[in-house]
């Protein structure tokens, strides 16, 4: 267990730690898991729609992944980083036009009906492709799903689709819901969206708005001896300080998704019986990015963008904003990604003199007041860290003579200002890397995206070479050739700086010592927790 308890000092190693974490083997546990008990944990938001097949987001998965399972889950040591769930094996055809999934036998839905390939076909065609926030992109060319028998599902694509992408998308995008429940009436209005029925180790119990969600043990679960817990209770704690107090008062045993603010971790790690864990989120990496509006003539100049990159002291940001719980970024793919990351890209060392020289060269001389020009800076309000980095960036820009005016909005207003109205010059955003650049990363720099699409290139950036690269990668079937194209993609982004990647971070869990099998896969907080247990 001591292998997981980390002090702040060891975390200051930063990038090395993040890199190492994916290479580390799955943990071996000395004790045999105990059966029974109720796990109470903090939930900071209450998703209204709990159907992960429609809403593939961490907020929904946090609760629903215990009830509704995916075809495969992320794994530290499995082949291609995957472990089987509802599917036992998967294989893509060489022509990219089909993918075959062999399904698990003897799986039952929570209402007792058998799980079959018809459920997979229905979920994929009726939900993932037309309705799901991420599936609408990844499964856009899915034409049909053949079900030769109850345990085989063959996905047929209208256009060649890289199987590497489908495979990488499985943990987040492939939640299977029961056809017999959803085939009647409108899918979006189905009552099961608020009380999901799945195949998972836990059944949906009840939801008391503003108070808690209760999940109860599925005694018919396919996993041998699993699950260990009798119940999981998500206690709704909307206040940022509540989770830490509740842990200390032993009212909850776990606070995941950084419910305990970074600033409190040092103190709370010294409380006897509590441990701070930074593993288990490797598959949910957030990227701290400076979004740039290229419509501003100053920012359309590469020299100015390079100057801004040189003005940011990434190490300082890791130390002060993230208190060491993050790694510096080099480009649009995070360092901890095992498949695509390359370090072979241009980097921008912290160098104020060079930044000033670049701006002089670009023709933006300092005025008599020491200022070159003024920019509007909009930090995203979703995380403390994005707001704090906004404050830091303002100071960093002041040092090179750029006067940044901070505009603080709430979430809805920020989304509208940046992605619909384009009323920004610089913005601080936290896009998520989802295991494959084609899921939600290339969209950040690609041109031709309609106005209003969140977390996409709304800065008016257009680079034909980059667009061509993205298009080519999207139809390259061979995994290694495709990977090489994405390495080139990283190089091009780091060279032309459509946006500036500053840092990569993920979440922290704080738990009682009694909670076992924590963080044993790269998406642990959003996995099914069949093997999680409580020592009495």
């Amino acid at each position: 267990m001591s292998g997981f308890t980390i002090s702040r000092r060891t975390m200051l190693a930063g990038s090395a730690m993040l890199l190492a974490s994916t290479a580390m083997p799955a943990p071996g546990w000395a004790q045999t898991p105990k059966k029974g008990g109720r796990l109470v944990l903090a939930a900071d938001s209450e998703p209204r729609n709990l159907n992960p097949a429609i809403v593939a987001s961490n907020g929904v998965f946090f609760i629903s992944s215990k009830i509704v399972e995916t075809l495969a889950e992320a794994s530290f040591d499995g082949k291609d980083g995957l472990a089987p769930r509802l599917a036992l094996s998967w294989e893509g055809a060489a022509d990219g036009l089909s993918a075959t999934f062999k399904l698990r036998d003897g799986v039952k839905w929570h209402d007792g009906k058998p799980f079959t390939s018809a459920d997979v076909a229905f979920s994929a065609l009726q939900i993932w492709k037309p309705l799901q926030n991420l599936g609408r992109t990844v499964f856009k060319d899915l034409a049909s799903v053949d079900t030769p028998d109850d345990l085989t599902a063959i996905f047929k694509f209208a256009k060649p689709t890289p199987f590497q992408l489908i495979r990488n998308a499985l943990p987040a995008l492939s939640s299977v819901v029961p056809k017999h429940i959803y085939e009647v009436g409108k899918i979006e209005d189905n009552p099961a969206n608020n009380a999901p029925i799945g195949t998972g180790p836990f059944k949906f119990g009840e939801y008391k708005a503003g108070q808690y969600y209760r999940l109860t043990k599925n005694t018919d679960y396919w996993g041998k001896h699993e699950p260990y817990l009798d119940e999981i209770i998500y206690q709704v704690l909307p206040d940022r300080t509540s989770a830490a107090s509740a842990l200390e008062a032993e009212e909850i045993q776990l606070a995941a998704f950084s419910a305990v603010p970074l600033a409190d971790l040092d103190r709370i790690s010294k409380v006897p019986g509590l441990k701070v864990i930074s593993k288990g989120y490797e598959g949910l990496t957030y990227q701290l990015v400076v979004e740039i509006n290229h419509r501003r003539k100053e920012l359309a100049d590469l020299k100015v963008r390079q100057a801004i990159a040189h003005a940011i002291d990434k190490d300082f940001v890791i130390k002060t904003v993230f208190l060491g719980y993050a790694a510096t970024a080099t480009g649009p793919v995070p360092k901890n990604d095992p498949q695509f990351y390359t370090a072979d890209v241009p980097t921008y060392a912290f160098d104020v003199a060079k930044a000033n020289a670049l701006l002089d060269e670009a023709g933006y001389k300092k005025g008599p007041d020491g200022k070159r020009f003024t920019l509007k800076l909009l930090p995203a309000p979703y995380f403390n860290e994005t707001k704090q980095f906004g404050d830091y960036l303002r100071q960093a820009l002041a040092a090179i003579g750029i006067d940044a005016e901070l505009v603080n909005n709430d979430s809805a207003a920020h989304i509208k200002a940046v992605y619909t109205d384009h009323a920004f010059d610089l913005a601080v955003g936290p896009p998520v890397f989802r295991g494959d650049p084609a899921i939600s990363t290339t969209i950040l720099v690609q041109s031709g995206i309609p106005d209003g699409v969140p977390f996409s290139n709304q800065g008016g950036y257009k680079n034909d070479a980059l667009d061509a690269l993205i298009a080519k990668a999207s139809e390259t079937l061979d995994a290694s050739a495709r990977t090489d194209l994405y390495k080139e993609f990283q190089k091009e982004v780091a060279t032309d700086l459509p946006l500036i990647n500053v840092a990569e971070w993920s979440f922290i869990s704080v738990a009682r010592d009694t909670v076992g099998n924590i963080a044993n896969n790269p998406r642990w907080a959003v996995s099914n927790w069949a093997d999680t247990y409580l020592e009495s």
Partner: protein
Amino acid sequence: MTRTLTLIRRRLVGSIFVLLIVVIGTFLLLEAAPGDAVDAYIVSTGGDAGMIELLRHRWGLDQSELTRLANYLWALLHLDLGQSVTFSRPIRDVILERLPNTLLLMVSATALSFGLGSALGIYAGARPGSFRDRFLSIGSLALYAVPGFWLGLVLIVVFAVDLRWLPIGGIETLASDKTGLDRVADIAVHLILPVSALGFIYLALYLRMMRAGMAEVWRQDFVLAARAKGLSRRRIVLAHVARNALLPLVTMLGLQSAQMLGGSVVIESVFSVPGLGRLAQEAVASRDTPLLLGIILTSAVLVIVINLAVDIAYAFLDPRVGAGEADA
């Protein structure tokens, strides 16, 4: 009795206009805020242009503001509060679920601040200028100056985290399946901290009003007469001075009800109490216009009813008030 009825009738007619202004004002304010319910929603999901269009259509946000306001008012005329965008449930149900918690919190906090405040005010005002008078005046001012959320956090750290005497938040023990008296006791225990945090702040107000009122009454002729009669000091304080000083406090009670609703927003989120205040905060963040309108309407009705009740009580306590309004 007819005077009281006239008062009620006049108030009800006036209230309809107040409510209409409240509804239209809130609607316009929320429309002026940048971003709509879909913008708030896609923060946690992302999504492509087609999905966003689909959502706007489903939630009726592709209609013009005027159409939406007209539709809302038309439904309201039929006593229908509409459907919450984010909860996908009837707003009436969502509000009714939370209202009891907020009412419980407000009524208990008001009882605490009014009861203890006026009692301490009498105690302090009985001997103006004494040590206990000064101590209580300064102490209550200090409490009044403390922000509610801070007081709440301190109470949590001391009584829930360190001493572990009381729960850190919530309205009752989670998923405990308690019923009957056990449940009542459980809720009472959960209310101690939030009610204290909310009540102690307003306590100072009643204490100081009571004390100031008494200081004034002490100088009245009838107090002198009572003294001359040889009544005991206790009787003078309670029956003559305090009783006359109590009237303005009743007015304050009505006015404070609106303040309490505002204060409960903060307290509900610090103590994780699922009440109307927290719901309102969530409705603003998620730009759920119909839900927020429903909450504001409910609160407005609540404040109007409380003030009407106070006025009726006042009319009984002091006949001049009711008569004045009825004749005007």
